[in-house]
C-alpha cells in the first residue's frame, strides 16, 4: 500500500465543541444586557466597553508575545470575554485611563502571571474590578443617572445604587418601608432601570442570556441556582425576623451585581469547581458571603468579594469533593 495513513489511538471521532465556540457563546449571551445598558447609559456604555475589550485583548497579545514568548492566543475569545465582563462591572462614567489600568491588572495579574488560560485561581475580570475598587473608590462608586445621561460620558450626573440607598438609609435608622419609596419598583428593577454598573442592571436580560448558555451547554445550572437559592433563603430569614431593618429576598436578587455575578462570573470554568456537589458548596458560599457583606459589611455590595473568596477555596473543594463513582458502593436491588 502506498497511501500514507494516520495511526493514532482511539477515539477517532471528536465533538465540535471548542474553547472558541464556548467563549463566543458567552459573548452572545451578554449581548441583550449590553443593549439594555446602551438604552439606559448610552454613549458611556459604548465607550467603557470598547476601551475595556480593546485593552484586555491588547495586553493579552503583548504579554504573550513579548514577555512569555508564547504564541498569542487572543483568537480563542477568552480575553474578549474578560474585557466584556470587566466592562460590565464598571460604572459607565469611568475615565478611560482607569479602565486601562483595570484591564492591565485583570489580564496581567489576574490571568497571565499564573501562566495564562486555565491556570489562574481567581476570576481575572474580578481581580481587575476589585483592584480598581480599592484604588479608585470615589470613581468606582459614582454611577450615572440612567436615561438622562445618555449623551454624557465622564460628565454625567450621578447617584447611588438601590443597594447603596438602602445601606445608607438603614445605617441612619430610616425604616425599610420609607427607603423602598426612594427606589424604583420591582418591575423596573428587574428590567434594569436603576443606577449601577454597566452590565449588571438588567436581571431580565442577564437571565435570558443565562438560559441561552444553559441551552448551549456552556454552563450548568448548579452554580447560579445554588447562589440564588442561598441568597433567597438567607435574606428571607433575616427579613422574616426583622422586616423593618432588612430588605426582602426579592430585592436582593434583582439589585446589584448578583445576577451578573451568579450567571457569568461565578461560572467561569477555570475558577469554579468541577463536580456538581462542589458547585453547590461554592455557590452557597458565594450566596452567604454576599449577603453577609451586604447586610453587615462596610460596603453595600459584596458579590465580587464573595466570588473571589470562594475562588480561593476551589482547589480545596476539587481535592475533596469527588464525583459519584460508578460501582463505588454496591447499590443493588
Amino acid at each position, binding site marked *: 500500500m502506498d497511501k500514507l495513513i494516520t495511526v493514532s*489511538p482511539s477515539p*477517532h471521532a471528536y465533538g465540535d465543541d471548542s474553547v472558541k465556540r464556548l467563549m463566543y457563546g458567552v459573548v452572545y449571551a451578554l449581548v441583550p444586557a449590553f443593549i439594555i445598558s446602551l438604552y439606559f447609559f448610552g454613549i458611556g456604555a459604548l465607550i467603557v466597553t470598547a476601551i475595556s475589550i480593546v485593552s484586555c485583548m491588547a495586553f493579552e497579545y503583548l504579554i504573550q508575545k513579548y514577555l512569555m514568548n508564547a504564541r498569542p492566543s487572543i483568537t480563542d475569545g477568552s480575553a474578549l470575554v474578560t474585557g466584556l465582563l470587566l466592562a460590565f462591572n464598571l460604572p459607565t462614567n469611568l475615565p478611560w485611563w482607569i479602565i486601562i489600568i483595570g484591564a492591565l491588572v485583570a489580564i496581567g495579574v489576574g490571568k497571565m502571571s499564573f501562566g495564562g488560560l486555565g491556570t489562574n485561581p481567581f476570576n481575572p475580570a474580578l481581580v481587575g474590578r476589585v483592584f480598581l475598587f480599592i484604588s479608585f473608590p470615589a470613581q468606582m462608586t459614582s454611577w450615572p443617572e440612567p436615561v438622562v445621561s445618555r449623551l454624557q460620558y465622564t460628565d454625567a450626573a450621578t447617584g447611588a445604587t438601590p443597594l447603596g440607598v438602602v445601606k445608607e438609609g438603614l445605617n441612619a435608622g430610616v425604616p425599610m418601608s420609607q427607603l423602598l419609596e426612594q427606589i424604583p419598583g420591582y418591575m423596573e428593577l428587574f428590567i434594569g432601570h436603576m443606577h449601577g454598573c454597566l452590565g449588571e442592571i438588567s436581571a431580565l436580560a442577564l437571565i435570558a442570556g443565562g438560559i441561552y448558555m444553559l441551552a448551549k451547554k456552556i454552563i450548568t445550572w448548579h452554580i447560579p441556582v445554588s447562589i440564588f437559592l442561598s441568597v433567597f433563603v438567607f435574606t428571607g430569614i433575616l427579613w422574616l425576623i426583622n422586616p423593618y431593618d432588612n430588605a426582602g429576598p426579592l430585592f436582593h436578587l434583582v439589585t446589584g451585581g448578583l445576577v451578573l455575578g451568579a450567571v457569568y462570573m461565578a461560572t467561569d470554568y477555570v475558577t469554579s469547581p468541577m*463536580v456538581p456537589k462542589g458547585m453547590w458548596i461554592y455557590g452557597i458560599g458565594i450566596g452567604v458571603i454576599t449577603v453577609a457583606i451586604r447586610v453587615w459589611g462596610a460596603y453595600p455590595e459584596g458579590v465580587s468579594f464573595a466570588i473571589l473568596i470562594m475562588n480561593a477555596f476551589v482547589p480545596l473543594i476539587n481535592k475533596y469533593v469527588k464525583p459519584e463513582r460508578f460501582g463505588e458502593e*454496591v447499590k443493588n436491588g
Partner: protein
Amino acid sequence: MIQTFPKGGIHPAEDKFAAGIPIRVLPLPKTVNIPVSQHIGAPSEPLVAKGDKVKTGQLIAKSNGFVSTNIHSSVTGTVTKVDKMMDSSGYKRMAISIDAEEDQWEEGIDTSKTLNRKISATGDEIIRKILDAGIVGLGGATFPSHIKLSVPRGKKAEVLIINGVECEPCLTSDHRLMLEKGEELMVGIQLLMKALNVKRALIGIENNKPDAIRHLSSLASDYEGTEVKTLQIKYPQGAEKQLVKALIKREVPSGKLPIDVGTVVHNIGTAFAVYEAVQKNKPLIERVITVTGKKIESPSNFMVRIGTLVSDLVEAAGGLPDDTGKIINGGPMMGKALKTADVPVTKGTSGILIVPSDESRRKPVLNCVRCAKCVSICPMGLEPYLLQAATEFKKWDLVENERALDCMECGSCSYICPSGRPLLDYIRLGKSTVSKIIRSRKQ
C-alpha cells in the same frame, strides 16, 4: 419504557450508513491469514504445518490453557506458512496462512439453512460445544465465551443479558444480524439460558433500531422469559457495566464482573455463533463485518471468513477511496487504527471504517480550561482531566487513588474536550503504569 444508564454518556454522530444494506456473503478469498491469538488469553497452539491440507471447519490450533480457545480453518486448502505475520495490532504475531480452494467442509458440519429449534444438548454439553467451536465475545472484547458461562462456585446467575445495543457509531453488523437471523438468535439465546441455568433473558437494543426491536419482540413472545428492552440512544450503552445498570439497575462494583451482581452479558453476534455451534455443529469461522465510511462507494455488511484480508474486504465495498486518512478496525470510538489494510480480520472484528483525511487529524491541543465537561460525561464517574495531569506529572499514587483502573477506555472524555486534549492517551499510560506498580507490589 425506555431505559438507560444514569451517569455520563455522549451522543456522537451515528453515521450508520449500512443499516439498510442486507448481509452479503463475501466471495471466498484467495488466501487467509488466521492469527492464533484472536482472543483475550493464551494464544492457541497450532496443530498444522506448512504443506498440510485442511478442510473448512477443521481444527488448526487448539486451546492452550483455561483462558484460551480453539481456532478452525475458515477455508479449504493448503497451509503455506505457519509463522509470524503482521496482524491488526500492528505487530508480527504467530498466524497460519492458507491458500484457499473450493470449499470442502469438515465431517459433521450442517451447512444447510434449515432452522433447528429443538434443543437436545444439556447445559454442560452446550458449554463444551462453545469451547470446541472457539467462540469468543464477538462484540469486540473477544473473551472466551465458555468461561463466562462457567459460573464460579458461590455465585449465581439470575438473568442473561443480550447486548444488541451497537452504540458504536457507523457499525451495523449486529443490527443486520438481528433483522436477518432473528429466529436463530432466539434459539442461541435459549441455549445460553440453558447453559447458565437461568429462566430470564433481556435483550437490550437502542432506540435507533426500531425495526430490530419490533422484529425480535415479536419473535420473543414465543419464548418464555425472553424479553426485548428498548434503550435510549447514548454512548457507551453497550459497555457491559453500563448495560447491566440500564437493564437491571444493578451497579457492578469496581474491579468486579457482572456475575457478581447475578448476571452474564453476551453479544448478539455471540448468540448467533452459539446457535451455529450447538445446533449446526459449525465452529466459528465466519462473522458479519460492516465496511463503511463517508467516502466508501458502497457501505456494506458482509459475512466474512475469519482471516480474510482487510484489503479484500474493502475492495468488495468499492475499494479504498483516494481520500483515505485512516483505516480503523472497529468503530470510531473504540476501534483501532491499522497501519495497513494487509492484515486479516479476526473473530473480534465487527467493522472496518475508512475515515477521510480531513477527519483523521486531531484538533490542536490547548490548555485545560477546567470546563468540567470530561467529568460530567465520564460514565464511570472519574475525573479525566485530573487523571491526565496526574499521569503527565507521574504522580502514580494519585492516578491509582483516583481510580484510573476503573476507566474502560470508552473515549468519551477525549471526544468531548473543547481543548482537544488527548485525555485517554494519557489515561491509558496511567493505567498500564499503575497496573505494573500493583503487580510488583504483590510480588
